[in-house]
């Protein structure tokens, strides 16, 4: 069980204003995509907070945190439940044994994430699926969920009242309004002319399951006509917490906390958050964020495809060990009491089993994955995990360009622009009779000229740092009879610039960078708010990043501070 004392290291400056120098002119960075970049930073002095420090720690971010009294928050687009959230919610409502997993069409991926509210659109197939899903839940299951039967008009009325105050409340994740109750009573009485009572209520339930109150998280806040940010109701906060931390609807405790007004203040939210984060479901839910942030789908896809001739020891068991080993490693870095983002980038450990021991060149630890030291001065953290390296490796060859882009995009939040017009992306072949070459040499030959040079100078220089690792993550110093050159450099960043030699030095450079801490924070803010980061998120992101920097990258604490903060407790004014 987590305790709040563990989080006290985390210093917040949410209530104070931070100074507003803005990093760069571009709003076209990864996280700003979709935002208008309409607001610009406010320069000048600040009454408190980190005086003199720029708000953004990324030259491509456009973030502002004005002086004065907040809350300063960005937009609040209407969010529909993701497929995972929808299925988990059905399971909670009706019991996991009584529902079948609905195969809804895959969400649109925006900026790497599947929960972007702006990207959601009601495709024909989705609407058909959402209409059909309630029919797959049996009559008996719905009857049981409704929880009462009626043999007379009086009993019907009592049963309906019970339904409204219990199951219907769970369905809408808040108490029904008087208007809604009245509308549903009328609806049932109309249906009763042709159908029996139980059937009429079932039709009502199936209709409510297609309604926006169920499918969306519609937030009207406490006073909808406000011109300023609107404080969310306790029930709305309960849903935000539950879907962020458990990927499902609020449980009975959260409902009770909302009803008792305990979610109207940061302390009450903290208390519930500690409880939710102490439950195994939080690991599953956060791993859904991590899956998207660290591109596990791409990683698994590439782990699965290796050349058996080149890598004869690489079996199906190896694939599973690499995929699970990476997940367990990252999960530890987030959840273990003494670990952090810093450990994620620097740790000398890996989860290894008999099937993957040959990659790490360690003794066979057994059939099950076991956390063990894999140091030898060769490896450090995430970027040297065999799962990561094989995931960013092709069938026979390593993938320095993809590795470089990953670091720039997912760890530094400074992705390179896409290739320009008029490029042939095929790598040049070595000149005839030139003898053996390394992949690095061939890439350098192809990228030194023309339009490629400007971007690939940056991308390749980062990716080359991992050249000691082949397509499945084995360390080597010779490639194709030639010595491996793993020298690289980072440039044009806020604070990570400089030369390095090999993976360990690259990792150390990243672990020290505040831009990396800010990047992880910005990704989490994006995920938690289901939308692209906007300039007005500056106050939120800068204070959360301060906490990340001071705690050495305590992601749990950053999440706690996020949900206690204004951006999670307020919504934007409603403009008709």
């Amino acid at each position, binding site marked *: 069980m987590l305790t709040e004392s563990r989080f006290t290291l985390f210093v917040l400056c949410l209530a104070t204003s931070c100074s507003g120098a803005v990093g760069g002119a571009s709003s076209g960075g990864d996280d700003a995509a979709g935002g208008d970049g309409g607001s610009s930073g406010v320069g000048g002095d600040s009454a408190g907070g980190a005086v003199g420090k720029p708000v953004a720690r990324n030259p491509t971010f456009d973030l502002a945190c004005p002086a004065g009294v907040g809350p300063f928050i960005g937009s609040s687009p209407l969010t529909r439940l993701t497929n995972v959230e929808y299925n988990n919610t059905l399971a909670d409502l009706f019991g996991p044994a009584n529902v079948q997993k609905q195969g809804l069409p895959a969400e649109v991926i925006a900026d790497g994430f599947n929960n972007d509210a702006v990207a959601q*659109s009601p495709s*024909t197939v989705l609407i058909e699926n959402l209409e059909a899903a309630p029919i797959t839940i049996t009559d008996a299951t719905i009857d049981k969920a409704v929880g009462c039967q009626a043999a007379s008009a009086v009993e019907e009325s009592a049963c309906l009242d019970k339904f409204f105050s219990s199951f219907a409340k769970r369905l809408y994740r808040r108490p029904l309004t008087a208007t*809604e109750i009245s509308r549903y009573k009328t*609806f049932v009485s109309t249906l009763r002319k042709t159908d029996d009572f139980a059937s009429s209520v079932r039709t009502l339930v199936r209709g409510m399951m*297609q309604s926006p109150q169920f499918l969306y998280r519609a937030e009207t806040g406490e006073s909808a006509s406000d011109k300023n940010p609107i404080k969310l109701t306790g029930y709305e906060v309960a849903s935000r917490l539950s879907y962020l931390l458990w990927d499902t609807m609020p449980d009975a405790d959260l409902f009770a906390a909302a009803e008792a007004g305990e979610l109207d203040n940061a302390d009450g939210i903290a208390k519930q958050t500690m409880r939710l984060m102490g439950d195994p479901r939080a690991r599953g839910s956060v791993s859904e964020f991590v899956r998207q942030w660290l591109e596990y789908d791409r990683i698994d896809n590439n782990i699965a495809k290796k050349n058996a001739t080149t890598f004869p020891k690489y079996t199906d068991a190896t694939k599973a060990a690499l995929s699970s080993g990476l997940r367990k490693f990252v999960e530890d870095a987030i959840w273990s009491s003494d670990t952090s983002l810093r450990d994620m980038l620097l740790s000398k450990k890996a989860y290894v089993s008999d099937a993957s021991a040959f990659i790490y060149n360690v003794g066979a630890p057994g059939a099950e994955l076991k956390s063990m030291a894999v140091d030898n001065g060769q490896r450090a953290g995430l970027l040297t995990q065999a799962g990561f390296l094989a995931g960013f490796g092709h069938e026979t060859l390593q993938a320095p360009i993809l590795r470089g882009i990953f670091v720039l995009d997912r760890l530094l939040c400074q992705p390179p*622009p*896409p290739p320009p*017009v008029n490029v042939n992306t095929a790598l040049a072949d070595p000149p005839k009779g030139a003898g053996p070459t390394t992949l690095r040499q061939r890439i350098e030959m192809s990228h030194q000229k023309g339009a490629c040079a400007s971007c690939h100078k940056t991308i390749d220089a980062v990716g080359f740092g991992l050249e000691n690792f082949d397509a499945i993550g084995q360390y080597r110093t010779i490639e194709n009879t030639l010595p491996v050159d793993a020298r690289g450099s980072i440039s044009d960043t806020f604070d990570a610039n400089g030369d390095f030699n090999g993976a360990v030095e690259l990792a150390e450079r990243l672990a020290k960078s505040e831009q990396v801490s800010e990047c992880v924070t910005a990704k989490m803010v994006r995920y938690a708010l289901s939308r692209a980061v906007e300039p007005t998120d500056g106050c939120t992101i800068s204070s959360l990043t301060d906490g990340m920097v001071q705690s050495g990258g305590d992601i749990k604490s950053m999440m706690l501070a996020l949900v206690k903060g204004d951006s999670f407790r307020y919504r934007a004014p409603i403009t008709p």
Partner: protein
Amino acid sequence: MTSGMTRKLSMLGRRDLLRAAGLGTAATLLPSLRRAEAASGIPTRFVVFYTQHGTLPEPWKPTGPGGVGAASETSFDLGELHQPLASFKKDLILLSGLDMRSWADGPQVACGHVNGQVASLTNFDAISKGNAGGPSIDQYIAAGLKKQNGGVSPTKLPSMNLAAAGDGYFGQAAFFSGPGALVPIESSPTRAYQRLFPNGTSPSTTGPSLDALAAARRRSAAMDVAMGEFAAVENLLGKAEKTKLEAHAAAIKDLQTRLSKAPGGGGTSCMAPTAPAAKVGFRDGGDAMIRMIQAGFACDLTRVASLWMGSTPNADCGYSPGMLGTTDLHDLVHKVDGDMRSNPTAVGVIKKFHIAYSQVFAQLLTALKAIPESDGSTMLDHTVILWAGEIAQGGHGCANLKWMLAGSAGGYFKTGRYLNWGDYNRGEYGPDRNGPSNGDLFSSLANAMGVPTTTYGSNGRSTGPIAKLRG
């Protein structure tokens, strides 16, 4: 439940269908199918056949008759990549030199797989990477058919967007119903089947039972509840949220209307195929999905479909990872457009890759040709199939496309021709404005489908239908 026709065919071959339809002799083409269609009420159908990685320009090109000399518009033999289509030569229009104008003139920086996917079927400038600024031609036609039919889709399903395999190197963002509104692609034959034939049977000819009617009434009532809630919630929220909710409510209304219609009909060829095994993949998935398109059209459950082919399995073209120093087939595709263009082994593999697509395309045409229509023609004659993709060739360019139409859309298009607006100039990856835009082609296709359209795509990216397609 219903007492509809429950006969199933495991193989929908032409002979089987002719027998089923009571036709003993081969159907013959009528001289003017268009007029016949107007009289017979045979619907016109549209299919997009979508493949990856462009093509190989030289073996794509037709040759002069007998392989001698240059091809002319009407006198040619199909090129090496299209030999599996030889028996369909008179049904084809080969199109060489179209440009994705929204890419060529638009604000996007590079074409390539992702941007090309977005531009290929829309001709709308992207609103962001991976998000088209307007509908793809299939969805535009489906929406147009609905509008022409008084706001109600003429078929149970407005369109079926299918995939032979779930894979795709760069996502599957080619089909859009509007700006940024991605249309999901179904890669499970089982689910595609269930959507077409929820009860596992062909649409009833005797009408639904009382139980079915009651169930349908309750489904409709449930949708009424939901739509009432949308109206209520919309008023509490802001403009952007209201727009989103209105689109959702409209989609429910559309579904309610479609479900209230008699489900499909079609002619005597309407039969539910055997429920497919849960196989996917280039061959099995392609085969299963072609049956879905065939049955969906035959039962008039939809008139618009797409088939996303994904990548051929390596074994189909003799590729193995690492071959010739390449990382994967996609890598080799690019190299064959670059430094390996003279490497016979590399070119041979990529030829086989494209020939495999031709084989599946031929399978699709065969399936449509196997369905007789009431006027003595075949379903292929009343369909137009567009074979398109996300780039022109291995070099990531989106100009000088080599695409193809098959079927005349009921005599609207003059088939059996090779239209060449210009050849690809090797080494030039930039925009090339020899030919019409893909939007001009879409204008023609929309008109062929009975959806009047002057230009297609972002402003200025299309000049109008391609007259030459008609003769």
